[in-house]
Every structure is written in C-alpha cells, then in structure tokens.
C-alpha cells in the first residue's frame, strides 16, 4: 500500500512523456486523426486512470493513514544528482493537496484533449505540406508530463524545473501558429515575462538553499521553523530594499525569500506587474487557452504559493495579498471593455487568479485552493465554449459580430451560461438546509475567501485587544509591541514572538481558549458563540481549567498578532467586494452578446454550427462545475489544510476549519461579527445586480453601451481600459526598447572602444617595430658611414612623409603639436614658473596651476 500510491503518481508521468516522443518521432506517420487519439489516450487517458485510482483510494483513507503515506513517500525518494555535497532527490510529494490537484489536472486535461481532437479536426493545419496536427498533440502531451511533474514535485528544484518546462510548453503552444505575425511575439512575450518572474524565483531558491540548507519542501519548512525559533539564519539580519517608494527596510531575509519565491508565481499566474503576457497568450489555439492559460498552468502560481506557504512570513503574505488585490480589481475592470471573446475570458482569468492569490495572501489557504479547483472547472468550460463559438463562427472572435447564437449552439449556450453563473458566484445566500447549501462552485469558494478577508479586515481587533489584555497582565507584550515599531531593529518580528514564547510562556492561554471556542463554533456552524468581548472571561476560564502547558505553547506559536500578522487594510477588502460586482457584469455581458439578442452579423450567424465532439467535454465540465467540485474537492482540500496550518510563523486563517485537527484560526462567528452573515448582505446578491445591470445595458445590442462609452467621464475611463492602463506601451518602452538600447550601446562599445584600444595597441606596436627595424637596426648593421647617409635618407623620408597633401592632416598635426606644447608647459616641472612668467607678462597673476 505505502509505495503503491506514490508509485502510481510517479508512473503517471511516463505515458505523456512517451507519447511526446512517439509523436515527435513518428508523428507524421501516425497520421491525422490517429495522432490525436494517441495523444488523448497516452497523453492524458492513462494518467487520468492512475490518478482516479489514487484519488479514490485517498478519498477513503483515514487521516492517520494519510499522514503515514505522506511520510513514507517523503522517505522513499531516489537520488537524482548532487549539488555540492547536498544530494538532490526526486520523488513524489504525496498529500491531499497533490492528490486533489493531480486529479483535477488529469480530469480537466483529459476533456480538453478530447475537445482538441474535435477542434483540430476542422483546422487547416497544413502549411508548406507539413501537417502540424501531430505537433499539437505532442506539445499537449509534453505539457501533461510537465504539469503532472510540477504537481508531484517534492522539492523546490524540481518545482522549478517542471515550472520552466510548462513555460516551454506554453511558449510552444502559444506560438503554435508560428507562421503568423501575431503568435511568435506573443509566445516570446509569455516566456520572457515568465523569466522575469523566474529571476525572483531563482533568488528565492538561492536563499532557501543557502540558509535552509536544502531544497526539499519538507526539509526547508522544518529548517525554517528551527531558525525562527532560534532567531538565526534567515531571521538573523534585516535587509533594506527600497521598491517603488515603499522602503522595505527592516525586512528580514525570510521575507525577501518569500517575496522572491512569490515572484515566480507572479510570472506564471500573471499577477499584476507581470500580467501582460496572458492576454497575448490567447494567440494560441483555444483548447490551449482553456488548458494552460485558464485551468492548469496559470494556477501553478497559486499552487506554488500554497506549497511554500510555510516559508512565507506575515510581511511576505501581505505582499502577496496586495499583489493579488491589485490584480483582481484592475484586471476585472479591463474585462468590461474587451470585445474579443477570448481576451474577455483572459482578463476574467487574470482577475480570478488575483482572487486566489489574494486568498493566499490573507491566509485563506483552503479557500484559495478551492477556488483554484472550481475556477479550473468553469473557466475551462468557458474557454471551451468560446472555442466552440470561434470554431463554429470560422474564427471570428469579436463579440460585436456575434449575437443570437443560442439557436445555433444550444448546448454551448447553456453550458456557457452555467459557467457564467458559477464565476459570478450564484447561489442562495444565507440559506441552508442542515449543512446543505445551494450554489455553484464560485459561490462557495469566493464566499470563503471574502469571509476570511472580512475577518482579517474587521474582526482582527479581537486578537489585538486580547494582546492588550495580556500585556496588562505581564508586560511581555508591550515590549514586543513597542519594539515592533522599530523597523531598524535587527531582529525580526517573528523572532520576537519566538522570544516572547520562551521568555513568557504564560502569555496567552486565554487566546488559546478563545481560539478553541471560535473553532468549535465554526465547526458546528452556530452563530451565537462567545466573542472576543468575552476573551477575558474565557481566558480566566481556560486558566482555571488548567489548559496551560502544551495548549498555551501551541497557541502562542499561532498567535497571529505576535507573529506579525496585521489586520488587513480595509481598502483591500473593499476592492475585492467591488470586483464581486464587476465580475457578473462582464461575464453576463460576454454571454449575452455572444448568444442572446439578435444576430449582428448575418454572415457569421448563418455559418455557425456546433460540433458533437466538442459538446461532450462541455457537458462533462458543466456537471463538474455543478456538483463535483464541492462534493469531491472541498473535503480533500480541507484535509490538506494542515500543510498550511503547520506553518511555523504564519497563522493560516481559514474559513471553516473543517478538520478538527487543523490548528487554524477560525473565523469569528459571534453574532454581530459573523463574516458569512455580513457577506450575505454585502455581496450575497452581487450576481443579481451584475446580471441586471448588464442586461439593462446590453439587452438591445450595443447601442446603449456605445452611448455610455462616449459620455464624459466614461470615455476617458474607456480609453484607459481599452489600452490596458498602457502597460504594454510602458513595458515596450521601458524594457524592450531600453534593453535593446543598452544592448546596442554594448555592441557599440565592443567594436568601437574595446576593439579600438586593441587595434591602437597593435598599430603602435607596428609603428614601433617599423621604427626599430628601419632606423635602429639599419644603423647598427650598416655602420657609421652608411648610417649617416641612411639617416639623411631617413630624415628626408621622415620629412617627406608628413607632407601628405591632405589638408586635414596638416590641421591635425598643427593642433596636435600645439596641444602637446601646451601640455608640456603645464606638465613640465618648471612649467609653473614659465607659465607664471608668461602670465605676468600678460598682466595676469596665476594661482594653483
């Protein structure tokens, strides 16, 4: 049993890899339809089979046994290579997170492969008599291999390796239509932008290896914990990094490491400053957009953050949250004005990825991953639907030319609508029968993220007041709090908590108790428990009952405020809420413009059709969106939560804390602060509002929107959004032109400066040689008399040579000699006095000289 599951997971890498080589080597011979089926079966069918076995087995395995399996897999890794004297091992990371994501990737990829066969069937893919059909599936298989490898990687190095490989596949697939004008630059942009992120990732890797001494995830987390407790290594010193006007002085190396690792995620998940490549990546075939640029690869960034969650300090987490927040809001705004159906979905993807990253940043670990899964389902479905539309409309992507496609593509229309409902977070807010609530995937996952964000933004006072209370009791807190203000202090915030823990072990039993209360309430779902207001009482109660010892120790490690976790700035929560209203609007707009209303381009409408091969995956994914994500993945991810809860430094806030063993901070469920009930009123019906507004604007086609677009404040906004905040232009100028400019300068220097120096050196040597050869040697050899005549001759020659007849040379010589004379005057030892004489003659004095 023990090696079985991990071996299955490892084995799932083999079929896609072999399929890749089979298709590369014999692709043209296999032929057109068959290559696709080979790709489907080998590339994803077999892995899906294996993955299903693992998933089902895991689903019915008890928690203790799961942990045993995890550590067994951890211990059965094979040696891959040596890095210094450190042994780099390869193996399988076997835990709930891996299993869940692995299954999700396999499942979605399988249906997208299936869809691709239909999609590519009608494709004119012969260029220069070379079919690219097999190439497409070869790339897809390679992608399957890399993505699954990424998911099961146990160490950061392998994460990085597969990370780059999925980047390569993305590059190849975006550039699939490489004979066009638009695809190659888009592919290049994607790769290079990712490389910028990887630059940070490599720095993070370097810091991890240097200070934590290992690249293994488990080992690194353990070392992190130890160093935190001891205040050494990563926490021993602070660095000062001014970025964008924020001075990160006083940041520990640990924070820098976290930010570095997150940079990789920023590249892959296309977060705010590096988001520019994803919309362009839509140049690839639509199944690719669905698979790589919506469901799996771009989510790898979120997966990475989830994996390294235990290595993030609170400051790094806050950085993550800020980036996520910016992305989710501003990208959603752009989506409103997009007219290309794929671009619209791309910006929606960016925004949703921002949601996930934001969720990670605020500590909603489970919720963010859950959103990853639900999003993967419905966004893959939406993209496939758009692929169906594009294919059916003969590669028209402009929504303004569509409309009224419902009659031609009913299945696509309604599955797309399910996707829209899901992404909008449709559900019945505040209503439940027992534990059963009603809604689509996005409803639950977004709700959880927002609930945590709410809790961090508004209910955080419960910890801070608790802290004050404790400080009143024993003063230890005050030291921590006051010294925390001193940014230049060379010991980190986190280390304070550790010191505090050792110095004042009795600091926080009450907090533990409060935690326990809150958790209990979260579990039972009652909304009327004790709140933070009763912390004192509860604390006293806890102390009386003798909950000291282990519980207190544990809780102080989990004390969020002491660990440096600050309350979430309220604007971030506000942004997330605003986006919750924007998302339904633009998604409904996309759906309505495409499928409903009157056909705006009869030509497009006439030829539109739906393909059987492509509707099946849509239906399957729709079912997945409706039920599977919540029923299957939520509990799985909840079980994975301890991975994050084990975080030594950071307290993982989590929505519901389904698993009693998970020592997460649960939400404050007291009646007046329950995030869920608050959210019902704040965003519960946002989807209705969004839909309604979109319907009002677009129900009669584009007229109203056109008019709105041209009214005063909106027209500027529209221009800004249409140009995507001018990021492409900015980067084009700043980086591309800048880089090429610097490169040109370097090239110039190389030929004109460095080479010139060498050439001058050689010509000087040559002249010198000529001189010695002609004058000195000749004199020596030919004796005195000869020498005289030779000298005379040479002199004549020498005198003749300067008379070149070239006017410019004369000027040059004159000025050169003049300069030399002046310089000699200035430099000669008696120059000063001579100059003084001259100057005095002229009636001036000199000074200095």
């Amino acid at each position: 049993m023990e090696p079985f599951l991990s071996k299955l997971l490892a084995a799932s890498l083999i079929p896609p890899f072999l399929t890749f080589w089979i298709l590369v080597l014999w692709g043209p011979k296999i032929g057109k339809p068959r290559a696709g089926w080979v790709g489907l079966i080998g590339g994803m069918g077999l892995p899906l089979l294996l993955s299903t076995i693992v998933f089902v087995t895991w689903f019915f395995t008890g928690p203790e046994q799961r942990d045993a399996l995890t550590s067994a897999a951890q211990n059965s890794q094979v040696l891959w290579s040596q890095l210094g004297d450190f042994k780099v091992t390869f193996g399988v990371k076997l835990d709930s997170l891996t299993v869940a994501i692995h299954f999700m990737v396999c499942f979605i990829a399988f249906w997208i492969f299936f869809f691709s066969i239909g999609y590519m069937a009608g494709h004119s893919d012969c260029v220069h008599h070379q079919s690219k059909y097999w190439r497409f599936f070869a790339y897809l298989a390679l992608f399957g291999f890399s993505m699954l490898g990424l998911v099961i990687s146990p160490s950061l190095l392998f994460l990085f390796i597969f990370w780059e490989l999925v980047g390569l596949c993305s590059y190849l697939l975006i550039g699939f239509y490489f004979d066009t004008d638009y695809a190659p630059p888009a592919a290049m942009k994607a790769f290079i932008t990712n490389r910028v992120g990887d630059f940070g990732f490599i720095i993070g890797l370097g810091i991890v290896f240097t200070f934590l001494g290992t690249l293994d995830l488990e080992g690194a987390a353990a070392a992190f914990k130890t160093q935190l407790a001891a205040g050494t290594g990563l926490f021993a010193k602070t660095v000062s990094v001014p970025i964008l006007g924020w001075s990160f002085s006083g940041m520990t190396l640990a924070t820098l490491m976290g930010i570095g690792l997150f940079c990789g995620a920023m590249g892959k998940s296309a977060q705010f400053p590096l988001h520019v490549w994803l919309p362009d990546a839509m140049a690839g075939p639509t199944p690719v957009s669905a698979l790589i640029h919506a469901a799996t690869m771009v989510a790898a960034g979120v997966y990475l953050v989830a994996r390294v969650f235990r290595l993030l300090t609170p400051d790094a987490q806050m950085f993550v949250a800020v980036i996520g927040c910016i992305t989710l809001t501003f990208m959603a705004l752009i989506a409103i004005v997009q007219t290309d159906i794929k671009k619209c979905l791309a910006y929606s993807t960016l925004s949703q990825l921002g949601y996930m990253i934001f969720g990670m940043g605020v500590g909603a670990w489970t919720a963010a991953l859950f959103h990853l899964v639900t999003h993967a389902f419905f966004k893959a479905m939406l993209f496939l639907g758009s692929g169906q539309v594009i294919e059916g409309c003969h590669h028209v992507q402009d929504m303004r030319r569509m409309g009224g496609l419902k009659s031609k593509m009913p299945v696509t229309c309604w599955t797309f609508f399910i996707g829209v409902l899901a992404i909008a977070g449709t559900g019945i807010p505040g209503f439940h029968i027992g534990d059963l609530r009603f809604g689509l995937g996005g409803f639950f996952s977004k709700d959880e993220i927002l609930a945590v964000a709410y809790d961090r933004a508004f209910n955080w006072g419960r910890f801070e007041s608790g802290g004050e209370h404790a400080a009143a009791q024993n003063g230890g807190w005050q030291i921590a709090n006051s010294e925390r203000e001193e940014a230049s202090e060379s010991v980190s915030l986190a280390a304070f908590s550790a010191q505090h823990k050792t110095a004042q072990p009795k600091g926080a039993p009450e907090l533990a108790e409060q935690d326990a209360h809150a958790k209990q309430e979260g579990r039972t779902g009652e909304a009327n428990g004790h709140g933070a207001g009763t912390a004192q009482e509860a604390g006293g109660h806890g102390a009386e009952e003798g909950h000291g010892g282990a519980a207190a120790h544990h809780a102080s490690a989990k004390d969020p405020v002491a660990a440096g976790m600050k309350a979430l700035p309220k604007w971030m929560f506000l942004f997330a809420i605003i986006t919750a209203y924007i998302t339904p609007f633009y998604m409904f707009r996309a759906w309505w413009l495409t499928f409903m209303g009157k056909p705006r381009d009869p030509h497009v409408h006439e030829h539109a059709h739906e393909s059987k091969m492509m509707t099946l995956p849509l239906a399957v994914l729709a079912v997945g969106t409706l039920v599977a994500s919540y029923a299957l993945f939520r509990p799985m991810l909840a079980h994975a939560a301890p991975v994050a809860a084990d975080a030594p430094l950071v307290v993982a806030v989590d929505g519901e804390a389904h698993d009693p063993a998970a020592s997460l901070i649960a939400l404050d469920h007291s009646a007046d602060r329950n995030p869920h009930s608050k959210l019902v009123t704040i965003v519960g019906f946002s989807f209705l509002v969004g839909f309604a507004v979109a319907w009002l604007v677009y129900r009669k086609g584009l007229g109203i929107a056109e008019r709105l677009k041209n009214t005063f404040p909106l027209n500027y906004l529209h221009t800004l959004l249409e140009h995507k905040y001018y990021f492409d232009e900015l980067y084009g100028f700043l980086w591309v032109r800048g880089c090429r400019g610097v490169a040109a300068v370097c090239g110039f220097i190389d030929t004109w400066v460095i080479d010139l120096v060498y050439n001058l050196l050689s010509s000087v040597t040559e002249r010198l040689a000529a001189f010695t050869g002609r004058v000195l040697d000749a004199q020596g050899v030919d004796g005195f008399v000869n020498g005289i005549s030779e000298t005379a001759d040479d002199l004549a020659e020498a005198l003749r040579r300067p008379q070149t007849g070239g006017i410019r040379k004369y000027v040059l010589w004159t000025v050169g000699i003049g300069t030399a004379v002046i310089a000699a005057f200035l430099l000669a030892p008696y120059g000063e006095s001579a100059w003084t004489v001259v100057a005095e003659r002229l009636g001036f004095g000199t000074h200095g000289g």
Partner: protein
Amino acid sequence: MLSWTIFLPAIGAVLCMFAPKNQIKRIAFISTLATLLLSLLLIPAFMGGGIDPAGTFGTRYGLMHFVERLPWITGESFTIEYFVGLDGLSFPLFILTTLVGFLSCWASWNFENWRVNKGMRTYFILFLLLETGMLGVFASLDFFLFYVFWEVMLLPMYFLIGVWGGPRKEYAAIKFFLFTLAGSVLMLIALVAMYFYSGDAVRAAMADASSPAGAQSQGLVSGYRPADAPLLNGGTFDLIEMATNDVIAKHFASDGTTFLGVKFAVIMFIFLFIGFAIKLPSFPFHTWLPDAHVEAPTPISMILAGVLLKMGGYGFLRLCYPIFPSGGEAWAFVLATVGVISILYGALCAMAQTDFKKLVAYSSVSHMGYVLLGVAVMTQAGFQGAMFQMLAHGISSPMCFFLVGVIYDRAHHRDLNRFGGLWLTMPRYGTLATIGFFASLGLPGLCGFIGEAWVLIGTFQAGANPQMPWAYTMAVLAAAGVILTAGYILWTIKRVYLGHPHEEPGHEMPEATARETAILVPFAVLCILMGVFPSQTVFNYCNGTLNHILAVVTGG
C-alpha cells in the same frame, strides 16, 4: 592507450600527407572516429566517481588514470617529463574533444562547396594536428608539456582561420593569434617562475637541518611518485606535485615569497588567469572571439567554441586554483566581477547583433562567464556548476554553430533579419535547432540549465562565507542574465525560425540533409541526456576530483 588516443589524429595527419587526393577526407574521418571510439573505451575506468580508494596517487587530488610518464628532456638541472594522465577533471573534457573533433570533421565533409575550397590536404592535416594538440592539453600533467601542446594547438588554428576563413579572415586570424600568444607569454613567465620557485622550496627543505630524513621524502618524492621516477633536482614542472607537495605549496603561498615585489601567489595567479581568461574568453579579453568565430569556417567554429574555450576553464581548475589557492582568495572578488560582467555584457552584446554567428559567439562569452563565476566563488556547487557549464556549452555551442553553418550553406548570408519561417521550410532542422537554442537558453531538462543553476546556487552559498559578502549581489546580477539570455535567444528564434518564410530568389532552403541531421542528432541527444541525467552523464565522473581540488584549495 591514452597516448595512442592522443596521437592517433597525428598519425592520421601523416597518412593524409601521402594519401591520394580522393582518400583524404575518408582518412580524416576514420582517424577522428577511431579516436572517439578509443576515448570511449576509457570510460569504464571512471565509473563510480573517480575517488581514489587506495590513495596511491595523491589522495588530495583525485584519482589519476592511464598515467604514462617518461623522461623527455632531462638535463643536469632540470627535468621535463612526458607525463600524461586523466582524472575526473580532464576526462570529460577529453571525451568532449574527441566527440566534437569527430563531428566537426564530419561537418567538413562538404569542403568542396566552401568559399575557399583549395588545399583540402593541408586543411585536414592541420585539422588532425589541432585535435592532437587539444587532446594533449587536456591530458598532460607536466606544465612544460602542457605548454608545448598549447602552442601546438595554436598554430593550426591560426592557419585554419586565416586560410579557409571568411572575408576578413586575415584580421581575425591575426587577432586570435596575438591574443592567445599574449596569454601564452604570461603563462610562459609563470612556467619558468614556478619551476625555479619550486626548486627553491625543495632546496630549502633539503637544507633544513631539523628534518634531514624527512626532507628527502617530503621535498623530493611525494607519495604518488614511483620509485624509479627521476628525482627532483631543482624544480618541477609536475602540476600534481606542485599542487599537492606541502613544501612547495607552503613556499608558494608564503607572504615572504615575492615576484617583482608582489606576493608570488597573487601575481602568478593573475598571470595564469589572464592567460586562461583570454582563452575563456572573459570580458575585457573577449573581442578576438566574435571575429574569429565569424570568419572561421563552420567546423572550426565548432571546435573553437566546443573545445578551445574550455581550455580556459580547465586551466583555472587545473593550474590556478590548486597551485595558488591564496591567489584565488585574493582575487575572488575581481574574478567574480569579471564573470558577472561577462555574463551580462555578453548577453547584451549578443542582443545587439544582426549577424547570426556573431550572436552565438557573444552568447559564448555570456555562458563562459558562468564558468568564471562558478570557479571564483570556490564552493562545491560552484565548481561543479562551472564544470558542467563547460561541458554543456561544449555540446550546445558547437551545435548552434553548426546550425548556423547549415543555413549559411544555403542562404550564403547570416543576417538574422533576412531569415524567417525556417521551421516551416525545414521542420526537422527547425526542431533540432529549437533543442539546441533552448539548451543554450538554459531550459531545465536540457544541458544548459544545470550548469547555470548550480553556479547560481553555489554563488548564493558563497555569500554565507564572511569573506565573500558580495556574493549575493553577484548571484542576483548573474540571475538577471537569465532574463537577458531568454531575451536574445527567443528573439533570434522568432526572427529566424518562426514567422513567415522570408524567401529570397535563388536561395531556397531545402531540409537538412542526412549528414547534417546525423551531426546534429548526437548533439541534441546529449543536450537532453545531460539535462535529464546530470549525475550519470557528468557529475559521477568529475565530482570526486572536483571535491578533491576544492579540498586542496580550501586547505581541507
């Protein structure tokens, strides 16, 4: 057997001299192939890491295999030996040389179609002599012999570029020659100085009355020396001796030992360093490389990039560091800086080129910068990374040069902006080209990645060393090179292989021939194998020796 391998190409050269004209190519081909096969036979001896279990041959320097040592020029006052052998450092480079030698010989097969297609006999004779020279450099363990081989290699190269090169061949050849010669002169100074200083050390030890018995064994005969080997009666050219003999090492490292008023180790280190840095080539000494590459015919470019550049890195690891570790410490910052500048500057210069071959040449500067950086930081990971980077570059850059050569044969120009869409017209070639260039880019799974990553991580590690607080900055800057590399390589791929075919009348681009494919495929396979199995292909052979060298360097 080692000597046979070294001199087999030379024998081929002699045969070429007398062979009928139509047999010349065949003889050259067979002799390089035989050399390759013979060198592959050496592999089993190195299986298992090359760590000397018995400690017979200098425990501190890894295991030497296939040692052959004969007195060569011995007089009253000096001893020059024919002393060759392979250890984990030289062996992979030795195999690389035979491989690249064979493949580039095969790449010369279309000699008749070249711009300058006269003098085939001379060409192949010089080519084979060049290969002997290169093999000799890697195998020789006697400094004098090393120097002789070094010069033997230089002259054929000069003629190969200067006679069969492109339009500016004379300029390029002379530039190459002068640069390398300048390095050789410094090396010659070091050679002589080291001989006499080591003699001083030994004589001082012998005169030391306190250990009359110990002096004999300590100063004259180190542990690995066979009993009948000629005695040291003054100085030594023996590289292993100099690195491992405590007496000599102490004398070399001592503050009191000076040369021209500067500390001996420091100045000797920099002499040797400049000699090898020119070959590497690193930043201020690199300008010969683009010219030489651009003008040289394709096979010669392959050799130049694949093997000759490696001699610089090999020299660091064989001579500079083990013999003058204190010099290495003193110059670490400078070396690392030069390495980082090479990385960034080379990449930027590559980005500015429009000549395809020049671009690849500058990319070599950038890649070899990683070697310099990895060596300079003196960590295990750094050394391993540098070694791997040399081998990876030895595979990927000849491949890239050959790729350029293939399209140059068709289009008769190398202007990047005048190509396009080659992946459509030449799909097989395009696929292989993609592998080659992505390997050069440092994509994980291909050979370029391991070296870069190891060097970067090694540099980071060095930052923990209190003497190298600058290493973090270096690592970050070098990591930025990764972006630039991606930039210029992808831009190149975009311009040449993607997009619309850019056809010019009279220059159609037919698919790669079977010969061309056959030359490219081994490179591509090695790119992938080295990327996927770095231990099995490289590290297992060289790590033992590298760790020994590092132990010598850090005094462990």
